[in-house]
Protein backbone atom coordinates (compact mmCIF):
# COMPACT_ATOMS: atom_id res chain seq x y z
CA UNK A 1 0.00 0.00 0.00
CA UNK A 2 1.31 3.39 -1.00
CA UNK A 3 -0.07 6.73 0.18
CA UNK A 4 0.88 10.13 -1.22
CA UNK A 5 -0.07 13.19 0.82
CA UNK A 6 -0.17 16.55 -0.98
CA UNK A 7 0.95 19.47 1.15
CA UNK A 8 1.20 23.17 0.42
CA UNK A 9 3.23 25.89 2.03
CA UNK A 10 1.14 28.96 2.78
CA UNK A 11 1.74 32.35 4.39
CA UNK A 12 1.08 32.27 8.12
CA UNK A 13 -2.51 33.31 8.62
CA UNK A 14 -1.47 35.85 11.25
CA UNK A 15 0.82 37.55 8.76
CA UNK A 16 -0.45 40.45 6.71
CA UNK A 17 -0.73 39.34 3.10
CA UNK A 18 0.01 41.48 0.10
CA UNK A 19 -0.21 41.25 -3.65
CA UNK A 20 2.93 42.03 -5.57
CA UNK A 21 2.15 45.04 -7.81
CA UNK A 22 4.72 43.90 -10.41
CA UNK A 23 2.72 40.87 -11.56
CA UNK A 24 -0.38 40.75 -9.30
CA UNK A 25 0.72 37.51 -7.62
CA UNK A 26 0.82 36.78 -3.90
CA UNK A 27 3.97 38.22 -2.34
CA UNK A 28 5.17 35.01 -0.67
CA UNK A 29 8.45 36.52 0.46
CA UNK A 30 6.62 39.12 2.52
CA UNK A 31 5.05 36.63 4.90
CA UNK A 32 6.25 33.85 7.19
CA UNK A 33 5.42 30.48 5.75
CA UNK A 34 3.81 27.47 7.41
CA UNK A 35 2.30 24.20 6.25
CA UNK A 36 -1.32 24.63 5.27
CA UNK A 37 -3.08 23.59 8.45
CA UNK A 38 -5.59 21.29 6.74
CA UNK A 39 -2.74 19.37 5.12
CA UNK A 40 -1.43 18.44 8.57
CA UNK A 41 -4.70 16.61 9.13
CA UNK A 42 -4.08 14.76 5.86
CA UNK A 43 -0.56 13.75 6.95
CA UNK A 44 -1.90 12.59 10.31
CA UNK A 45 -4.64 10.55 8.64
CA UNK A 46 -2.05 8.88 6.40
CA UNK A 47 0.13 8.02 9.40
CA UNK A 48 -2.83 6.56 11.26
CA UNK A 49 -3.73 4.41 8.26
CA UNK A 50 -0.10 3.28 8.08
CA UNK A 51 -0.16 2.32 11.75
CA UNK A 52 -3.42 0.40 11.36
CA UNK A 53 -1.96 -1.52 8.42
CA UNK A 54 1.12 -2.49 10.43
CA UNK A 55 3.78 0.13 9.71
CA UNK A 56 6.17 1.04 6.92
CA UNK A 57 6.57 -2.55 5.64
CA UNK A 58 2.87 -2.70 4.83
CA UNK A 59 2.32 0.90 3.81
CA UNK A 60 4.52 3.84 2.84
CA UNK A 61 3.68 7.52 3.19
CA UNK A 62 5.18 10.00 0.73
CA UNK A 63 4.77 13.76 1.13
CA UNK A 64 4.43 15.67 -2.15
CA UNK A 65 4.63 19.42 -2.66
CA UNK A 66 4.76 21.77 -5.64
CA UNK A 67 6.30 25.12 -4.86
CA UNK A 68 9.39 27.34 -4.63
CA UNK A 69 12.71 26.32 -2.96
CA UNK A 70 11.41 27.28 0.44
CA UNK A 71 8.42 24.92 0.13
CA UNK A 72 10.75 22.02 1.00
CA UNK A 73 10.12 23.06 4.61
CA UNK A 74 6.56 21.78 4.27
CA UNK A 75 7.88 18.39 3.08
CA UNK A 76 10.26 18.33 6.07
CA UNK A 77 7.39 18.99 8.42
CA UNK A 78 5.57 15.95 7.07
CA UNK A 79 8.72 13.84 7.43
CA UNK A 80 9.17 15.06 11.00
CA UNK A 81 5.64 13.96 11.77
CA UNK A 82 6.57 10.49 10.50
CA UNK A 83 6.17 10.23 6.73
CA UNK A 84 8.77 8.05 4.99
CA UNK A 85 9.97 10.16 2.09
CA UNK A 86 9.24 13.28 0.11
CA UNK A 87 8.92 14.66 -3.39
CA UNK A 88 9.38 18.34 -4.16
CA UNK A 89 8.48 19.66 -7.59
CA UNK A 90 10.33 22.94 -8.02
CA UNK A 91 10.85 24.95 -11.16
CA UNK A 92 11.19 28.67 -11.89
CA UNK A 93 8.45 28.32 -14.49
CA UNK A 94 5.93 27.51 -11.72
CA UNK A 95 5.72 31.06 -10.40
CA UNK A 96 2.19 32.42 -10.70
CA UNK A 97 0.51 29.07 -11.43
CA UNK A 98 -3.25 29.07 -10.87
CA UNK A 99 -5.23 26.14 -9.48
CA UNK A 100 -5.59 24.51 -12.92
CA UNK A 101 -1.86 24.69 -13.57
CA UNK A 102 -0.97 23.51 -10.06
CA UNK A 103 -3.35 20.58 -10.35
CA UNK A 104 -1.75 19.62 -13.67
CA UNK A 105 1.67 19.42 -12.01
CA UNK A 106 0.35 17.51 -9.00
CA UNK A 107 -1.47 15.12 -11.34
CA UNK A 108 1.68 14.42 -13.33
CA UNK A 109 3.60 13.73 -10.11
CA UNK A 110 0.85 11.47 -8.78
CA UNK A 111 0.62 9.55 -12.05
CA UNK A 112 4.36 8.93 -11.91
CA UNK A 113 4.30 7.85 -8.25
CA UNK A 114 1.21 5.66 -8.74
CA UNK A 115 -0.06 5.53 -5.14
CA UNK A 116 -3.12 3.56 -4.03
CA UNK A 117 -4.39 6.49 -2.04
CA UNK A 118 -3.92 10.25 -2.39
CA UNK A 119 -4.69 12.31 0.72
CA UNK A 120 -4.85 16.08 0.94
CA UNK A 121 -6.47 18.96 2.81
CA UNK A 122 -9.81 20.11 1.44
CA UNK A 123 -8.58 23.65 0.95
CA UNK A 124 -5.61 25.90 1.56
CA UNK A 125 -5.82 28.75 4.01
CA UNK A 126 -4.35 31.22 1.50
CA UNK A 127 -6.24 30.77 -1.75
CA UNK A 128 -9.29 29.10 -0.17
CA UNK A 129 -10.67 28.05 -3.52
CA UNK A 130 -11.16 24.44 -2.48
CA UNK A 131 -10.95 23.25 -6.09
CA UNK A 132 -7.61 21.43 -6.39
CA UNK A 133 -8.85 18.09 -4.95
CA UNK A 134 -11.72 17.94 -7.47
CA UNK A 135 -9.40 18.97 -10.31
CA UNK A 136 -6.90 16.33 -9.29
CA UNK A 137 -9.56 13.62 -9.18
CA UNK A 138 -10.68 14.66 -12.66
CA UNK A 139 -7.15 14.71 -14.04
CA UNK A 140 -5.99 11.43 -12.53
CA UNK A 141 -9.28 9.60 -13.14
CA UNK A 142 -9.49 8.66 -9.46
CA UNK A 143 -12.80 8.51 -7.60
CA UNK A 144 -13.34 11.78 -5.77
CA UNK A 145 -13.86 11.33 -2.03
CA UNK A 146 -13.69 14.93 -0.86
CA UNK A 147 -14.53 16.74 2.40
CA UNK A 148 -13.95 13.62 4.47
CA UNK A 149 -14.69 13.89 8.18
CA UNK A 150 -13.84 10.19 8.60
CA UNK A 151 -11.87 7.73 6.50
CA UNK A 152 -12.08 3.92 6.69
CA UNK A 153 -10.09 1.49 4.65
CA UNK A 154 -11.49 -1.97 4.16
CA UNK A 155 -9.37 -4.11 1.82
CA UNK A 156 -9.41 -2.29 -1.50
CA UNK A 157 -12.48 -0.22 -0.57
CA UNK A 158 -12.18 3.23 0.93
CA UNK A 159 -15.21 4.70 2.67
CA UNK A 160 -15.58 8.27 3.92
CA UNK A 161 -18.09 10.50 5.63
CA UNK A 162 -18.44 13.40 3.21
CA UNK A 163 -19.39 16.44 5.27
CA UNK A 164 -22.37 18.31 3.80
CA UNK A 165 -24.48 21.27 4.82
CA UNK A 166 -27.09 18.98 6.30
CA UNK A 167 -24.84 16.38 7.93
CA UNK A 168 -22.82 13.87 5.93
CA UNK A 169 -22.98 11.40 3.08
CA UNK A 170 -21.33 8.01 3.31
CA UNK A 171 -19.34 7.60 0.10
CA UNK A 172 -17.27 4.65 -1.01
CA UNK A 173 -14.99 3.72 -3.88
CA UNK A 174 -12.38 1.18 -4.85
CA UNK A 175 -8.68 2.02 -4.67
CA UNK A 176 -6.84 3.79 -6.23
CA UNK A 177 -8.70 6.84 -4.95
CA UNK A 178 -8.32 10.43 -3.84
CA UNK A 179 -9.47 11.70 -0.44
CA UNK A 180 -9.53 15.26 0.87
CA UNK A 181 -10.01 15.79 4.60
CA UNK A 182 -11.67 18.53 6.64
CA UNK A 183 -10.42 20.18 9.79
CA UNK A 184 -10.76 18.17 13.02
CA UNK A 185 -10.86 14.76 11.36
CA UNK A 186 -8.07 13.94 13.83
CA UNK A 187 -5.54 15.57 16.14
CA UNK A 188 -2.31 16.12 14.16
CA UNK A 189 0.74 15.01 16.14
CA UNK A 190 3.59 17.34 16.97
CA UNK A 191 6.94 16.14 15.65
CA UNK A 192 8.96 14.54 18.47
CA UNK A 193 12.66 15.27 18.94
CA UNK A 194 13.35 11.81 17.55
CA UNK A 195 11.10 12.53 14.59
CA UNK A 196 12.92 15.78 13.86
CA UNK A 197 16.31 14.05 13.93
CA UNK A 198 15.10 11.13 11.82
CA UNK A 199 13.61 13.47 9.21
CA UNK A 200 17.05 14.81 8.37
CA UNK A 201 18.01 11.43 6.94
CA UNK A 202 14.81 10.76 5.02
CA UNK A 203 15.06 10.99 1.24
CA UNK A 204 13.51 13.90 -0.62
CA UNK A 205 13.44 13.70 -4.38
CA UNK A 206 13.56 17.00 -6.25
CA UNK A 207 11.85 17.08 -9.63
CA UNK A 208 11.74 19.72 -12.33
CA UNK A 209 8.86 20.06 -14.79
CA UNK A 210 10.86 18.29 -17.49
CA UNK A 211 11.23 15.24 -15.21
CA UNK A 212 7.45 14.98 -15.26
CA UNK A 213 7.24 15.48 -19.00
CA UNK A 214 5.58 18.87 -18.57
CA UNK A 215 6.33 21.94 -20.64
CA UNK A 216 6.87 25.30 -19.02
CA UNK A 217 4.07 26.88 -21.07
CA UNK A 218 1.34 24.88 -19.31
CA UNK A 219 2.17 26.29 -15.87
CA UNK A 220 3.07 29.54 -14.22
CA UNK A 221 1.69 32.89 -15.26
CA UNK A 222 2.01 31.86 -18.92
CA UNK A 223 -0.14 28.75 -18.52
CA UNK A 224 -2.71 30.19 -16.16
CA UNK A 225 -6.22 30.58 -17.50
CA UNK A 226 -7.31 33.44 -15.36
CA UNK A 227 -5.57 36.62 -14.40
CA UNK A 228 -5.86 39.47 -11.98
CA UNK A 229 -6.64 42.71 -13.82
CA UNK A 230 -6.18 45.06 -10.93
CA UNK A 231 -6.53 45.23 -7.17
CA UNK A 232 -7.10 47.92 -4.63
CA UNK A 233 -7.26 48.17 -0.89
CA UNK A 234 -10.87 48.35 0.20
CA UNK A 235 -11.77 51.51 2.00
CA UNK A 236 -11.96 50.56 5.67
CA UNK A 237 -15.54 50.13 6.85
CA UNK A 238 -16.97 53.40 8.04
CA UNK A 239 -16.89 53.52 11.83
CA UNK A 240 -20.19 52.39 13.30
CA UNK A 241 -21.99 53.33 16.45
CA UNK A 242 -20.95 51.56 19.63
CA UNK A 243 -23.01 51.99 22.76
CA UNK A 244 -22.53 50.67 26.29
CA UNK A 245 -25.29 48.54 27.72
CA UNK A 246 -27.10 50.32 30.50
CA UNK A 247 -29.92 47.86 30.78
CA UNK A 248 -31.29 48.79 27.37
CA UNK A 249 -28.62 47.32 25.04
CA UNK A 250 -31.00 44.79 23.52
CA UNK A 251 -33.64 47.45 22.85
CA UNK A 252 -31.03 49.66 21.20
CA UNK A 253 -30.00 46.87 18.83
CA UNK A 254 -33.69 46.29 18.07
CA UNK A 255 -34.08 50.02 17.28
CA UNK A 256 -31.14 49.76 14.90
CA UNK A 257 -32.63 46.66 13.25
CA UNK A 258 -35.97 48.46 12.85
CA UNK A 259 -34.29 51.50 11.32
CA UNK A 260 -32.48 49.20 8.87
CA UNK A 261 -35.77 47.41 8.10
CA UNK A 262 -34.60 44.00 9.31
CA UNK A 263 -37.60 43.89 11.62
Amino acid at each position, binding site marked *: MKIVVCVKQVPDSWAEKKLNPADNTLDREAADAVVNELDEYAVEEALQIQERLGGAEACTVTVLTVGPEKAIESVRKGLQMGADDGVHVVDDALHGSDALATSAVLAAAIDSLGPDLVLMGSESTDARMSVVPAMLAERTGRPQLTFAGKVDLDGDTVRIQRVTDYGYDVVEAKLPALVSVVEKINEPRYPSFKGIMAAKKKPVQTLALADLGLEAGVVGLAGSRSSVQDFAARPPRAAGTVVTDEGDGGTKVADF*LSAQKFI
Partner: protein
Amino acid sequence: MAEVLVLAEHAGGDVKKVTFELLTLARTLGEPAAVAIGEVSDDVVASLAAGGADTIYVANGAEYADHVVAPKVSALQAALAASGAVGILVPATAEGKEIAARLAVRTGAGIITDAVGVDAGFVAQQSVFGGSTLVHSVVTTGTPIIAVRPNSVAAEQYPGAARRIDLDVTVADIDRAATVTDRVAQERAGRPELTEAAIVVSGGRGVGSPEGFSVIESLADSLGAAVGASRAATDAGWYPHQFQVGQTGKTVSPQLYIANGISGAIQHRAGMQTSKMIIAVNKDAEAPIFDLVDFGVVGDLHTVLPQLTEEVTRRRG
Protein backbone atom coordinates in the same frame (compact mmCIF):
# COMPACT_ATOMS: atom_id res chain seq x y z
CA MET B 1 -28.20 37.70 -27.14
CA ALA B 2 -25.81 35.02 -26.00
CA GLU B 3 -26.79 32.71 -23.19
CA VAL B 4 -25.28 32.70 -19.71
CA LEU B 5 -25.70 29.40 -17.87
CA VAL B 6 -26.63 29.27 -14.21
CA LEU B 7 -26.18 25.98 -12.36
CA ALA B 8 -29.38 25.66 -10.32
CA GLU B 9 -29.28 24.45 -6.71
CA HIS B 10 -32.44 22.68 -5.71
CA ALA B 11 -33.49 20.08 -3.17
CA GLY B 12 -36.78 18.33 -2.57
CA GLY B 13 -38.50 20.37 -5.27
CA ASP B 14 -37.37 23.74 -3.87
CA VAL B 15 -34.98 26.00 -5.72
CA LYS B 16 -32.39 27.65 -3.46
CA LYS B 17 -32.28 31.41 -3.14
CA VAL B 18 -28.74 31.64 -4.55
CA THR B 19 -30.06 30.35 -7.90
CA PHE B 20 -32.38 33.35 -8.21
CA GLU B 21 -29.50 35.65 -7.30
CA LEU B 22 -27.38 34.13 -10.07
CA LEU B 23 -30.23 34.36 -12.61
CA THR B 24 -30.55 38.05 -11.74
CA LEU B 25 -26.82 38.48 -12.22
CA ALA B 26 -26.87 36.49 -15.48
CA ARG B 27 -29.47 38.90 -16.91
CA THR B 28 -26.91 41.71 -16.64
CA LEU B 29 -24.41 39.62 -18.64
CA GLY B 30 -26.59 38.02 -21.33
CA GLU B 31 -29.64 35.82 -21.65
CA PRO B 32 -30.14 33.80 -18.46
CA ALA B 33 -30.43 30.04 -18.86
CA ALA B 34 -30.74 27.66 -15.93
CA VAL B 35 -29.28 24.16 -15.79
CA ALA B 36 -31.27 21.86 -13.51
CA ILE B 37 -29.72 18.49 -12.71
CA GLY B 38 -31.11 15.63 -10.64
CA GLU B 39 -34.73 14.98 -9.74
CA VAL B 40 -36.17 17.94 -11.59
CA SER B 41 -39.90 18.32 -10.94
CA ASP B 42 -42.25 20.60 -12.88
CA ASP B 43 -42.25 22.85 -9.82
CA VAL B 44 -38.51 23.32 -10.10
CA VAL B 45 -38.83 24.23 -13.78
CA ALA B 46 -41.66 26.64 -13.00
CA SER B 47 -39.72 28.42 -10.23
CA LEU B 48 -36.67 28.75 -12.48
CA ALA B 49 -38.87 30.34 -15.14
CA ALA B 50 -40.38 32.72 -12.60
CA GLY B 51 -36.86 33.54 -11.44
CA GLY B 52 -35.93 34.77 -14.91
CA ALA B 53 -34.66 31.76 -16.88
CA ASP B 54 -35.34 32.14 -20.59
CA THR B 55 -34.16 28.60 -21.18
CA ILE B 56 -34.09 25.72 -18.74
CA TYR B 57 -31.77 22.85 -19.56
CA VAL B 58 -32.89 19.75 -17.73
CA ALA B 59 -30.86 16.66 -16.93
CA ASN B 60 -33.49 14.65 -15.14
CA GLY B 61 -32.58 11.56 -13.15
CA ALA B 62 -32.46 10.36 -9.55
CA GLU B 63 -29.07 8.71 -10.12
CA TYR B 64 -27.26 12.09 -10.21
CA ALA B 65 -27.48 12.02 -6.42
CA ASP B 66 -25.85 8.60 -6.21
CA HIS B 67 -22.33 9.66 -7.15
CA VAL B 68 -20.01 12.47 -6.10
CA VAL B 69 -20.30 15.44 -8.52
CA ALA B 70 -18.73 13.90 -11.66
CA PRO B 71 -22.02 12.96 -13.41
CA LYS B 72 -23.30 16.49 -12.80
CA VAL B 73 -20.18 17.80 -14.53
CA SER B 74 -21.14 15.77 -17.62
CA ALA B 75 -24.65 17.28 -17.52
CA LEU B 76 -23.35 20.83 -17.20
CA GLN B 77 -20.94 20.21 -20.03
CA ALA B 78 -23.81 18.92 -22.18
CA ALA B 79 -25.72 22.14 -21.43
CA LEU B 80 -22.69 24.16 -22.43
CA ALA B 81 -22.45 22.30 -25.72
CA ALA B 82 -26.18 22.62 -26.42
CA SER B 83 -26.31 26.33 -25.61
CA GLY B 84 -23.03 27.72 -26.88
CA ALA B 85 -23.14 29.88 -23.75
CA VAL B 86 -20.61 32.68 -23.26
CA GLY B 87 -20.28 32.21 -19.50
CA ILE B 88 -21.22 29.88 -16.65
CA LEU B 89 -22.20 30.97 -13.15
CA VAL B 90 -22.29 28.46 -10.31
CA PRO B 91 -22.99 29.04 -6.62
CA ALA B 92 -19.75 29.21 -4.60
CA THR B 93 -20.85 26.35 -2.38
CA ALA B 94 -18.67 23.31 -1.71
CA GLU B 95 -20.38 21.25 -4.40
CA GLY B 96 -20.83 24.14 -6.83
CA LYS B 97 -17.09 24.80 -6.75
CA GLU B 98 -16.25 21.12 -7.22
CA ILE B 99 -18.48 20.88 -10.29
CA ALA B 100 -16.93 24.08 -11.66
CA ALA B 101 -13.42 22.78 -10.96
CA ARG B 102 -13.92 19.55 -12.88
CA LEU B 103 -15.68 21.31 -15.72
CA ALA B 104 -12.72 23.68 -16.03
CA VAL B 105 -10.38 20.70 -16.41
CA ARG B 106 -12.65 19.13 -19.04
CA THR B 107 -13.15 22.28 -21.12
CA GLY B 108 -9.70 23.74 -20.55
CA ALA B 109 -11.31 27.02 -19.54
CA GLY B 110 -10.32 29.26 -16.67
CA ILE B 111 -12.22 29.36 -13.39
CA ILE B 112 -12.68 32.08 -10.79
CA THR B 113 -14.14 31.25 -7.40
CA ASP B 114 -15.74 33.19 -4.58
CA ALA B 115 -16.70 36.19 -6.67
CA VAL B 116 -18.79 38.77 -4.84
CA GLY B 117 -19.88 40.41 -8.10
CA VAL B 118 -19.49 40.03 -11.87
CA ASP B 119 -19.28 43.05 -14.17
CA ALA B 120 -19.90 43.28 -17.92
CA GLY B 121 -17.46 41.13 -19.87
CA PHE B 122 -17.32 38.60 -17.03
CA VAL B 123 -14.95 40.64 -14.90
CA ALA B 124 -15.21 39.05 -11.47
CA GLN B 125 -14.87 40.94 -8.22
CA GLN B 126 -13.24 39.04 -5.40
CA SER B 127 -12.68 40.17 -1.87
CA VAL B 128 -9.43 38.74 -0.53
CA PHE B 129 -7.16 38.81 2.52
CA GLY B 130 -9.97 38.99 5.04
CA GLY B 131 -11.85 41.56 2.98
CA SER B 132 -9.02 44.11 2.96
CA THR B 133 -8.40 43.96 -0.79
CA LEU B 134 -10.79 44.00 -3.75
CA VAL B 135 -9.49 42.19 -6.82
CA HIS B 136 -10.82 42.24 -10.39
CA SER B 137 -10.07 39.02 -12.26
CA VAL B 138 -10.84 37.69 -15.69
CA VAL B 139 -10.75 34.31 -17.33
CA THR B 140 -8.28 34.45 -20.19
CA THR B 141 -8.94 31.07 -21.85
CA GLY B 142 -12.23 29.46 -22.81
CA THR B 143 -15.79 30.09 -21.63
CA PRO B 144 -15.45 31.69 -18.20
CA ILE B 145 -16.63 29.64 -15.21
CA ILE B 146 -17.32 31.84 -12.20
CA ALA B 147 -18.41 30.67 -8.75
CA VAL B 148 -20.36 33.46 -7.06
CA ARG B 149 -20.96 33.68 -3.33
CA PRO B 150 -24.53 33.54 -2.07
CA ASN B 151 -25.96 36.96 -1.10
CA SER B 152 -23.73 38.80 -3.57
CA VAL B 153 -26.69 40.31 -5.42
CA ALA B 154 -30.34 40.82 -4.53
CA ALA B 155 -32.58 38.38 -6.41
CA GLU B 156 -35.30 39.91 -8.57
CA GLN B 157 -38.25 38.00 -9.94
CA TYR B 158 -38.42 38.45 -13.69
CA PRO B 159 -40.59 36.15 -15.77
CA GLY B 160 -38.33 34.33 -18.21
CA ALA B 161 -39.26 32.84 -21.57
CA ALA B 162 -39.14 29.39 -19.92
CA ARG B 163 -38.12 27.26 -22.88
CA ARG B 164 -37.43 23.75 -21.60
CA ILE B 165 -34.72 21.70 -23.26
CA ASP B 166 -34.05 18.18 -22.06
CA LEU B 167 -30.40 17.27 -22.29
CA ASP B 168 -28.99 14.06 -23.60
CA VAL B 169 -26.19 13.26 -21.17
CA THR B 170 -23.68 10.44 -21.37
CA VAL B 171 -22.09 9.62 -18.03
CA ALA B 172 -18.86 7.64 -18.23
CA ASP B 173 -18.32 4.69 -15.87
CA ILE B 174 -15.31 6.42 -14.34
CA ASP B 175 -17.64 9.23 -13.21
CA ARG B 176 -19.69 6.73 -11.23
CA ALA B 177 -16.69 5.48 -9.25
CA ALA B 178 -17.49 7.32 -6.01
CA THR B 179 -20.83 6.04 -4.79
CA VAL B 180 -23.04 7.56 -2.13
CA THR B 181 -24.30 4.67 0.01
CA ASP B 182 -26.05 6.64 2.74
CA ARG B 183 -27.17 10.16 3.60
CA VAL B 184 -27.19 11.26 7.20
CA ALA B 185 -29.07 14.42 8.10
CA GLN B 186 -28.20 16.13 11.33
CA GLU B 187 -30.76 18.19 13.20
CA ARG B 188 -30.80 21.78 12.06
CA ALA B 189 -34.10 22.75 13.65
CA GLY B 190 -35.41 24.16 10.39
CA ARG B 191 -32.88 26.97 10.22
CA PRO B 192 -31.58 28.30 6.90
CA GLU B 193 -28.26 27.06 5.60
CA LEU B 194 -25.32 28.97 7.01
CA THR B 195 -23.75 30.04 3.71
CA GLU B 196 -27.08 31.01 2.16
CA ALA B 197 -28.80 32.73 5.07
CA ALA B 198 -29.66 36.43 4.82
CA ILE B 199 -28.92 36.80 8.54
CA VAL B 200 -26.34 34.92 10.61
CA VAL B 201 -26.16 35.04 14.41
CA SER B 202 -22.84 33.75 15.75
CA GLY B 203 -21.47 32.90 19.17
CA GLY B 204 -17.89 32.67 20.40
CA ARG B 205 -15.98 31.91 23.55
CA GLY B 206 -17.99 34.59 25.35
CA VAL B 207 -21.06 32.33 25.14
CA GLY B 208 -19.38 30.33 27.89
CA SER B 209 -20.93 26.85 27.53
CA PRO B 210 -22.89 24.55 25.22
CA GLU B 211 -26.09 25.52 27.05
CA GLY B 212 -25.19 29.17 26.50
CA PHE B 213 -25.81 28.65 22.80
CA SER B 214 -29.55 28.57 23.49
CA VAL B 215 -29.52 32.40 23.73
CA ILE B 216 -27.80 32.51 20.33
CA GLU B 217 -30.31 30.06 18.84
CA SER B 218 -33.30 31.92 20.28
CA LEU B 219 -32.14 35.19 18.73
CA ALA B 220 -31.45 33.42 15.43
CA ASP B 221 -34.93 31.87 15.41
CA SER B 222 -36.61 35.18 16.16
CA LEU B 223 -34.88 36.64 13.08
CA GLY B 224 -35.17 33.54 10.85
CA ALA B 225 -31.38 33.43 10.86
CA ALA B 226 -28.72 30.73 10.68
CA VAL B 227 -26.43 30.05 13.64
CA GLY B 228 -22.64 30.31 13.34
CA ALA B 229 -19.77 29.90 15.77
CA SER B 230 -16.16 30.94 16.20
CA ARG B 231 -13.44 28.34 16.30
CA ALA B 232 -12.99 28.87 20.04
CA ALA B 233 -16.62 27.72 20.45
CA THR B 234 -16.35 24.75 18.08
CA ASP B 235 -12.96 23.71 19.51
CA ALA B 236 -14.49 23.68 22.98
CA GLY B 237 -17.21 21.39 21.63
CA TRP B 238 -19.98 23.87 22.46
CA TYR B 239 -21.30 23.91 18.92
CA PRO B 240 -20.81 21.49 16.00
CA HIS B 241 -17.84 22.13 13.77
CA GLN B 242 -19.84 22.46 10.56
CA PHE B 243 -21.15 25.80 11.84
CA GLN B 244 -17.68 27.33 12.22
CA VAL B 245 -17.24 30.63 10.42
CA GLY B 246 -13.79 31.75 9.38
CA GLN B 247 -10.66 30.88 7.55
CA THR B 248 -10.90 27.16 8.21
CA GLY B 249 -14.68 27.15 8.44
CA LYS B 250 -17.47 28.52 6.28
CA THR B 251 -17.34 31.84 4.50
CA VAL B 252 -20.56 33.77 4.89
CA SER B 253 -21.63 37.00 3.26
CA PRO B 254 -25.10 37.71 4.63
CA GLN B 255 -27.09 40.94 4.70
CA LEU B 256 -26.58 40.98 8.46
CA TYR B 257 -24.02 39.27 10.72
CA ILE B 258 -24.40 39.45 14.49
CA ALA B 259 -21.22 38.45 16.38
CA ASN B 260 -21.70 37.68 20.06
CA GLY B 261 -18.81 37.06 22.45
CA ILE B 262 -16.42 36.96 19.50
CA SER B 263 -13.23 39.01 19.68
CA GLY B 264 -12.76 39.39 15.93
CA ALA B 265 -9.49 37.55 15.24
CA ILE B 266 -8.23 37.84 11.66
CA GLN B 267 -9.08 34.19 10.96
CA HIS B 268 -12.67 34.73 12.04
CA ARG B 269 -12.93 37.93 10.03
CA ALA B 270 -11.77 36.09 6.94
CA GLY B 271 -15.09 34.24 6.98
CA MET B 272 -17.52 37.09 7.58
CA GLN B 273 -15.95 40.37 6.61
CA THR B 274 -17.92 40.79 3.39
CA SER B 275 -21.22 40.78 5.31
CA LYS B 276 -23.27 43.80 4.26
CA MET B 277 -23.95 44.86 7.84
CA ILE B 278 -22.28 43.79 11.07
CA ILE B 279 -23.45 44.03 14.66
CA ALA B 280 -21.40 42.91 17.67
CA VAL B 281 -22.13 42.35 21.34
CA ASN B 282 -18.99 42.03 23.45
CA LYS B 283 -18.21 42.95 27.01
CA ASP B 284 -14.75 44.25 26.10
CA ALA B 285 -14.93 47.74 24.56
CA GLU B 286 -11.44 47.17 23.09
CA ALA B 287 -12.37 43.98 21.18
CA PRO B 288 -11.19 44.30 17.54
CA ILE B 289 -14.62 43.18 16.27
CA PHE B 290 -15.86 46.69 17.06
CA ASP B 291 -13.65 48.04 14.26
CA LEU B 292 -15.93 46.30 11.78
CA VAL B 293 -19.34 47.01 13.14
CA ASP B 294 -22.17 49.17 11.94
CA PHE B 295 -23.63 48.90 15.41
CA GLY B 296 -22.13 47.52 18.59
CA VAL B 297 -23.04 47.04 22.20
CA VAL B 298 -20.47 46.82 24.96
CA GLY B 299 -22.17 44.49 27.38
CA ASP B 300 -22.86 40.95 28.54
CA LEU B 301 -24.46 38.90 25.79
CA HIS B 302 -26.40 36.92 28.36
CA THR B 303 -28.43 40.00 29.26
CA VAL B 304 -28.38 41.90 25.95
CA LEU B 305 -29.46 39.01 23.71
CA PRO B 306 -32.54 37.82 25.63
CA GLN B 307 -33.78 41.40 25.68
CA LEU B 308 -33.10 41.74 21.97
CA THR B 309 -34.87 38.46 21.18
CA GLU B 310 -37.91 39.60 23.12
CA GLU B 311 -37.97 42.94 21.31
CA VAL B 312 -37.60 41.30 17.88
CA THR B 313 -40.40 38.86 18.63
CA ARG B 314 -42.64 41.65 19.91
CA ARG B 315 -41.98 43.98 16.97
CA ARG B 316 -42.41 41.22 14.43
CA GLY B 317 -45.75 40.53 16.07
